[in-house]
Structures are given as structure tokens and as C-alpha cells.
């Protein structure tokens, strides 16, 4: 475990160094993403200015939900950037490189890339929380825990969906649909949805674990909410790992020449 952690830290250090080679691009993408998120959030400010409450959900709740989702999304891109194109890697036979090395394949492939703009998303989440009017030091601690667990669920969901590429032979279309689905559901008030939809949002597209549930935890500590978040993260992560390895047994090399830098 400690060995894998050291391996991850080295990978992250290398990825960051590679991203910082093009410093201007890195910072312009990060700042651009912060502006992008901020401008997008203005829609909710306009909406709640006109309609102050939607079944008890208010603008301050949106600040926290948006913040958690943005930071979780950003953290996934920073630490496990290849989670966004795992399907493509599988379909193009690019797993060969990772399979030939003495490291856990899934961990290695996910952590081999950083998405530069993700830094902007990650930072914006904290800005959104600070701007919510509900900031406290205790809340900040809960926010960090919430982001880590939301990221885990998001990552696991991406791995699950993209592992379908082992069976279906295609990755790109479902990846973008999956990302759109989970992020869109996560940033809309959960009070919009009926019981059936809520079951889907917990068990099928786990957007509730990326938005509403962590937001509730940030607003006020509760053992049951923490337990639910841990269960969701552990459950989806376990399932993702199992499905990926089941798919890996079917994997065939593309025998293409590839260079990984």
C-alpha cells in the first residue's frame, strides 16, 4: 500500500512537471475554467433571484453543491486524468504499455495524465464554498472530506462506464454521455426528483453522492450522512475495480507501436 502511494506521488509529480512545461497554457486554462464555472453559476443566481426557493432548495445550497461537484470533478482530472479517456485507451489497445509494467494496471493508467484545466475546477469549488455564506473552519474540513469522497464516486462511475469498452469495442460516445449525466444531475437540486428518480441517482448514476448528499454533510455533520458517503464511495469503487478486471481478462493487444511519455 505504501509502495503504491509512493508510486502515485511520483506519477503526480511527473505529471505536474510535464503540465508546467507549458506554463502559460496551464494557467490560462485554469483561469479560463474558473471564469467558465463562475459565469455558468450566474444562471443559478438569476434563477433564484426570480424564484427564491424550489421545494426548500435555495441559492446558498447551490453554492455548496456546485462547489463540491466542481472540486470533485477537478480533483479527478488533476490526479486521475486518464479516467476521462479510459475507454479510448482500451479500444485503441493502449493498455499494452501499462500491462507490461509491474504496477497495478488500473491505478497506473488512471494516474498517468493530468488535465490542466482541472486545476481551475478544483479551485473554483473552494471559491464557491467560501462565497456560499455558510463558510466555517469545521465546514471547510467537512468540505474537503466531501470532495474526496465525491471524487471517488465520480471516478468509479467513469471507470465502470468506460470498462464497457472491453465488451462493446467503443468508448467515446458513452464517456461524454456519462460525464454529462452525472455532472448535470449532481448540480441540479435533488428536491426536483421523485422517489424513482432518486433511486436512480443513488444506485445507477450516483449523482446524489456527488452533489446533494455531500452538500448536506458540509452544512452539518452527521454520522449517518458520513456513513452513507463512505458506503457509496466504497461500493462504487469496489464495483468499478471488479468490472475493470473482469473486462481486462477479455482484453486483446492491438499490437500497435506506441510511445508513452
Amino acid at each position, binding site marked *: 500500500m505504501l509502495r503504491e502511494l509512493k508510486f502515485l506521488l511520483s506519477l503526480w509529480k511527473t505529471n505536474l512537471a510535464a503540465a508546467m512545461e*507549458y506554463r502559460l497554457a496551464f494557467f490560462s486554462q485554469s483561469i*479560463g475554467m474558473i471564469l467558465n464555472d463562475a459565469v455558468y453559476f450566474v444562471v443559478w443566481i438569476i434563477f433564484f433571484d426570480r*424564484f427564491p426557493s424550489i421545494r426548500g432548495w435555495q441559492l446558498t445550497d447551490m453554492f455548496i453543491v456546485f462547489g463540491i461537484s466542481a472540486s470533485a470533478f477537478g480533483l479527478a482530472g488533476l490526479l486521475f486524468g486518464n479516467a476521462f479517456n479510459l475507454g479510448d485507451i482500451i479500444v485503441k489497445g493502449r493498455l499494452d504499455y501499462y500491462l507490461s509494467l509491474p504496477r497495478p494496471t488500473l491505478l497506473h493508467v488512471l494516474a498517468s495524465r493530468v488535465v490542466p484545466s482541472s486545476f481551475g475546477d478544483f479551485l473554483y469549488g473552494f471559491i464557491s464554498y467560501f462565497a456560499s455564506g455558510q463558510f466555517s473552519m469545521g465546514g471547510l474540513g467537512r468540505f474537503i472530506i466531501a470532495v474526496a469522497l465525491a471524487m471517488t464516486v465520480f471516478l468509479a462511475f467513469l471507470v465502470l462506464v468506460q470498462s464497457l469498452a472491453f465488451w462493446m469495442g467503443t468508448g467515446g460516445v458513452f464517456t461524454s454521455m456519462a460525464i454529462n449525466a452525472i455532472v448535470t444531475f449532481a448540480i441540479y437540486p435533488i428536491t426536483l426528483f421523485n422517489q424513482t428518480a432518486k433511486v436512480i441517482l443513488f444506485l445507477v448514476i450516483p449523482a446524489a453522492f456527488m452533489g446533494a448528499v455531500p452538500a448536506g454533510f458540509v452544512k452539518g455533520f452527521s454520522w449517518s450522512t458520513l456513513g452513507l458517503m463512505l458506503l457509496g464511495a466504497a461500493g462504487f469503487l469496489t464495483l468499478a475495480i471488479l468490472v475493470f478486471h473482469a473486462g481486462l481478462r477479455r482484453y486483446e493487444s492491438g499490437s500497435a507501436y506506441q510511445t508513452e511519455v
Partner: protein
Amino acid sequence: MKKYLAVFKINLLNSLTYPAELVTRSAMILLFMWIFFQLWRITFTAAGSDIINSLSLRDTMWYLLLAETLELGRPRLARVISEQVKDGSIAYLLNKPYNFLLYQLSSGLGESLPRMGMLFVLGGAQVWAMAGPPPDLVNWPIALVALAGAWLLHFCVNALIGLSAFAVEEVAPFEWIYQKLVFILGGMLIPLDFYPVWLQTIAKSLPFAYMMYGPARLFVQPDPVFFTQIILGQLLWLAVLGGLLVLVFSRGMKRLAINGG
């Protein structure tokens, strides 16, 4: 003109070659329209009224469908053009006996039309089932005219963003911010009619309202005076943005350095 028609036809046929992929990609609209319906159904109920700012729930849903169709169906030209500039493949296009900008317009239109058609059919079936039948067929031609003008405005801005690759390394941040400005000032997620009056005035003096709000509003509530305003506004902004596009392109050509190999 024949050559541009040929380019248009090739791209149209290319988009139709894999109908299953076209349908799958377009299925995203079902998710967005479903969420919008949940949001606006509850909002209208909470407001205690069937009509808000002269729009009913049915009008709002068909408005959002057309707006979403335009947004999801427009070609991602910015990325295409910027990649061509950055990797030098623009050289292969510049030495051909056609105008680069008209080539991109024909190619983008060929790609867009099937996608927008499929988005509207899928989304329309869903909105019909959820919110009620579409607007009167009499409205459709004038909305189509405004839709064509809106598409051309999108083309001009996207091409300008793509051509900024002559000057900057990364155009993605401009693309993101442009998209979010269309969301807010174009009334893509919330009809401009629901905005505070001061913000409506600002939005309607900018080109974004003519790119999104105008055609969508005409679709649900056509009005000859409003139609004239929208068309005149589109023509004005087309002159401005089109002129700027031609100027930027010719300046970019002077700066372009193509390395052989």
C-alpha cells in the same frame, strides 16, 4: 458555389453514414429536457401560476428544446480550426481553389443539419409527451429563418475563436466562456423573459440574444414585429462579426508561418 455544395453534401452524407451513432449522440437531449421539465414544472407550481411573463410551461419547454437543439447541434468549429492552425494542416486547405471560410461554413453546415434534425425529433417527442404538443406549424417557417441566422452568427464567433489560434496557444478557454455567455445572455437555460428588466435590456443589446433567444422565442410565440427586430438584429451582427472574421482571417494569413517537412 458548386464546390461548396459538394463539400456540404460530403459532410452531410458522412454524418448520416453511422445512423446508430447519430442517434446515440443525440440521445443526450433526452436527459437535458427531462431535467428541465422537472425544474420548470416545480417552478411553475411554486409560482402558483400557469403563465409566467407570458410563457406557459408548454411554451417554456418548447423554447428550451429549440435552444438546446441549436446549442448541441452547432459544429465545434473553434476546435477544428484551431487544430488545423496548430498542426499545420491548414496549409493543405489554403492551397486549394476555394475560400477557407466558405469551406468551413459548408462543411460545418453539412455536419450540423442531421445532428440538429435528430436532436429536434428525439427531444420533440419527449417534450410532446411531457408538456404538450408543439407550437402551431404556422410558426415553424419564421423560426427556421431566425434559426438559420442564429447558426450563421454562431459560425462567425466559433470561426473567430478558432482563428485566435494564430495568436494564442490554447483556444479552449475562449470557447468555454463564449458558451457560458450564450447560456446566460442568450437565454439558453432560462428564457430572457424571466430575467430582471435591466438584464434583459443588456442581453438584447448583445449578439447572444439573436443567437438563441430570438429563434426560440419566435418558435413558441411568433410576432411579426418581434420577427422583424430579430432579423434586423441578426443582419446587423452578421455584418459586424462577418466583417471582423474576414479581417482576422486575412491578418492571420499574413502571420502564418508554415514549416515544410
